């Protein structure tokens, strides 16, 4: 329970003095442990993404040696490296977002006793939503650019 007080000098109070008061009751779950686990998974998935990008780019260079591409080799390789980076990273991180959101939702829906609440909208859960929205936006942008690169290839 959190209380804030106000005070006023008696001599300053007249018939028109007004004050606002508020009362709120809210239930919430701490998402700090979940955010820690998701952050660790995010780091691991990024490492995995870099490995996948390296393997895909390596396969590309093996299939398309510089000697076969002549003077456009560097340009093509930079393009492909950029494409693989956006494509692989967005795909892997998407599944991280999907499974982390799904695990929270399924845990919430399957709980027989009230042990977990979904993060509420507004300031108290801003940290959770801000992190999710930033990563989701990055994934959407990366995926869109990768698709456009693939189309324009």
């Amino acid at each position, binding site marked *: 329970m*959190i209380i804030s007080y106000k005070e006023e000098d008696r*001599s300053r109070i*007249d018939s028109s003095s007004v*004050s606002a008061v*508020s*009362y709120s009751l809210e*239930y919430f779950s701490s998402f700090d442990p979940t955010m820690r686990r998701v952050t660790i998974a995010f780091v691991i998935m990024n490492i995995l993404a870099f490995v996948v990008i390296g393997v895909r780019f390596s396969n590309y260079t093996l299939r398309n040696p510089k000697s076969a591409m002549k003077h456009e080799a560097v340009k093509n390789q930079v393009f492909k490296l950029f494409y693989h980076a956006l494509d692989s990273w967005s795909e892997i991180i998407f599944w991280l977002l999907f499974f982390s959101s799904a695990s929270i939702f399924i845990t919430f829906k399957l709980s027989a006793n009230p*042990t977990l609440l979904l993060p509420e909208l507004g300031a108290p859960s801003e940290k959770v939503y801000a992190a999710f929205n930033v990563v989701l936006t990055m994934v959407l942008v990366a995926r869109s650019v990768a698709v456009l690169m693939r189309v324009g290839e």
Partner: protein
Amino acid sequence: MQFSDELNQKKFGTVNVASCNFYLNDLLKEDSLTNANIFYEMFIVDGEDRLIDVPVLVKDLRLADDSKPNAGSAMSDSMVFSRRFIVIDTISSVSTVTNKLFKQEGYVRWANSIQIKVELDPSAPE
């Protein structure tokens, strides 16, 4: 607020936010105030009818050394919690009891914001 809202307030998981304005002049009519200068303690009744005391964080708490341990917005170990709280205080700032004019002196204090936050414990559904 309707009567059904009043009943729903006591149901588990019901988020409730209410605010209003009141005339400070009413605080000076001490004889008609039924909840002034009363210390309250809050308890929760658990599933086995045990009373669980609720810690109270007074944001404006000022210690004897003039420090304000509860002033920050983030929770910290240095914060001081208490058990009792008061809703309206009209007498603690009055220094002289015998002065007939004492009701014209000093301050009145009131709780302008009360927040009750219930954090669910995943390891103990109760």
